């Protein structure tokens, strides 16, 4: 790991330059593909866990698009997940199911029965629009004030959805969603999200935004329109988070407003920070690591048999949650800047013209 910007020899072919430049995306896609291929051959339980892991990956990448590039920690992205989830659920559920669970739904939504893809795109788009509108005031705030404002957004969304009984069912679970998210669908959307995040971070807008992350005053003095660039990132971030929410909803088949609150926010933010919030590589590594640790601890709780002995050892239920928090803390103690330390992965040999100088 580690990038260096070295003047490239003129003879270096364009293809190699593109390959160099695309390394983080290539690495992420290869890693995820490998995991998915292994899981595909495994038992159904593992497939489901990996599917959930891929949905988390989309959410973490969505969070990364804003947090990684702007440097402002957002606690509001889970509310976009909730919005995506509910919009897609309401548009794709069968009319009969809606008539039963939500009798007071406006006729326009009550009569809708969209195909899954249309529902997914609508969910993500509505989340993006909400992000753009909510972002108008929020992007004016930097640092910890910005984080608290996004946290306020999370609370407002939670209270709003939780009490808007006629549309969301309020505190009760909304059931009867079509279940279509599987390993390969989640994989497809994960690759899509990684590509969106990567293409965005290669853009001029993201470069300007990262400049403001390093030094707000200097960036402003150099002509960076910080608020506008932040809003662009926040909107894309809202879209991807909304998408993650949609897939989450159609994996579980039932929705509860409180599934999209502090616990999920903690998990998604921890994955990003533990991986290293300043690079796409970090977002991917963080998600994979935490998902793997969670899964390992779950196995521990389920109990495992010691080979050659007729003995099964199981940890008490609930220990896994405590150990997960402990593991997160230990990783932070040893790597305070995250596992990837804010850098993108690159070729071990001297990088060429295409390499992206990383700002420490």
């Amino acid at each position, binding site marked *: 790991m580690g990038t260096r910007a070295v003047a490239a020899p003129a003879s270096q072919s364009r293809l190699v330059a593109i390959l160099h430049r695309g390394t983080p995306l290539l690495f992420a896609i290869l890693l995820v593909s490998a995991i998915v291929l292994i899981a595909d051959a495994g038992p159904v339980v593992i497939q489901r866990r990996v599917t959930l892991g891929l949905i988390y990956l989309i959410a973490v990448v969505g969070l990364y698009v804003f947090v990684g590039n702007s440097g402002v*920690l957002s606690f509001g992205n889970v509310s976009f997940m909730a919005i995506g989830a509910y919009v897609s659920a309401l548009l794709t559920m069968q009319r009969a199911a809606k008539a039963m669970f939500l009798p007071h739904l406006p006729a326009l939504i009550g009569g809708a029965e969209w195909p899954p893809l249309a529902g997914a795109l609508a969910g993500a788009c509505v989340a993006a629009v909400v992000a753009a509108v909510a972002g108008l*005031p*929020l992007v*004016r*705030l*930097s640092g*910890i*004030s910005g984080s*608290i*404002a996004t*946290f*306020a*957004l999370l*609370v*407002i969304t939670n*209270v*709003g959805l939780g*009490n808007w009984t006629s549309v969301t069912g309020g505190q009760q679970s909304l059931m009867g969603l079509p279940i279509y998210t599987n390993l390969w669908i989640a994989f497809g959307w994960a690759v899509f999200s990684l590509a969106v995040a990567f293409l965005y971070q290669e853009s001029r807008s993201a470069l300007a935004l990262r400049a403001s992350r390093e030094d707000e*005053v200097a960036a402003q003095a150099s002509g960076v329109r910080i608020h506008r660039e932040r809003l662009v990132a926040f909107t894309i971030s809202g879209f991807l988070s909304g998408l993650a929410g949609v897939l989450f909803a159609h994996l579980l088949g039932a929705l509860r407003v409180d599934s999209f609150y*502090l616990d999920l926010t*903690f998990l998604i*933010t*921890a994955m990003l*920070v*533990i991986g290293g*919030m300043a690079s796409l590589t970090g977002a991917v590594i963080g998600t994979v690591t935490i998902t793997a640790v969670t899964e390992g601890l779950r196995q521990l709780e389920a109990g495992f048999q010691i080979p050659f002995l007729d003995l099964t050892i199981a940890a*008490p239920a*609930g*220990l896994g*949650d*405590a150990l*997960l*928090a*402990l593991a*997160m*803390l230990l990783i*932070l*103690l040893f790597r*305070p*800047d*995250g596992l990837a330390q804010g850098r993108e992965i690159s070729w071990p040999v001297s990088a060429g013209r295409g390499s992206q100088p990383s700002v420490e």
Partner: protein
Amino acid sequence: MIETIVQVAADAVSLGGLYALSALGIGLIFGVMRLINFAHGDLITAAGYAVLLFASQSVAFAIVGALVAAILAALAIERAAFRPLRGADPATLLIASFAVSVFLQKTLILFVGGRPKGVNFLPVLEQQVAILGIHVQLLQIVTILVTAAILIALSWFLKRTRYGLEMRAAAENFRVARLLGVRADRVIAMAFAISGALAAIVSLLFTAETGLVQPRMGLQLVIVAFVSTVIGGLGNLAGAALGGFLVGVTTILLQSLLPEDLRAFREAFVFIVVIAVLLLRPQGLLPARGLRERV
């Protein structure tokens, strides 16, 4: 009419006081090490369970037990988790404190279970007392008096004692304070101990009011405290207290002024006000001197 106004005012001031004490606990730690300690809520919870343990024996036992539990827990998390991370990125510190909070909470659930437990602590305070013919709950008067006493004691400590001076110096500029002979470990440990004591007092008042303890009881308070310190002005203790107080007062006013069918959305309105305050004063109502960015 007058009676309603006085009762709403008593509600507002006592809730504001409780929130102000919670916010001070977070503000103190932020001052000395730029850490927003999300695990402060779990100190409140720890003190709550100490009350549960000792309440049947005597009130004094319960109070001492709560103080000891919260202070020890505060010192322990400082030593184990936050000391090695001193000087790390604020986002890392915040996530670390999230992790500490989840760890404490899940460990507690492992031992005592997740269900709320009833605790009969100071039932005397539930009675109404009449002042000039107006009925107010005794607990509210106690809460208001305790808050006022703590605020006075804390400002005396910070302004008039050597350790208080060290703490203020550390909050203003940690490096220069160390150069002038302030011992970093001691000043930070002391801030954690005081924040633990504040958590215990909040917990005692809160437990007396709700009559329940449960593993997530500190969460609501810490969220409010977290927001209050920011709108009050991070790094400024008077700001933290003011922020907490205002959030409490706003909550009660919305509760009594909002029409019936909007009352469920009360929290949402409180947080809309929070965003509005932040937009008008991004550095908080009382900005701290040491935090202003120099260009």
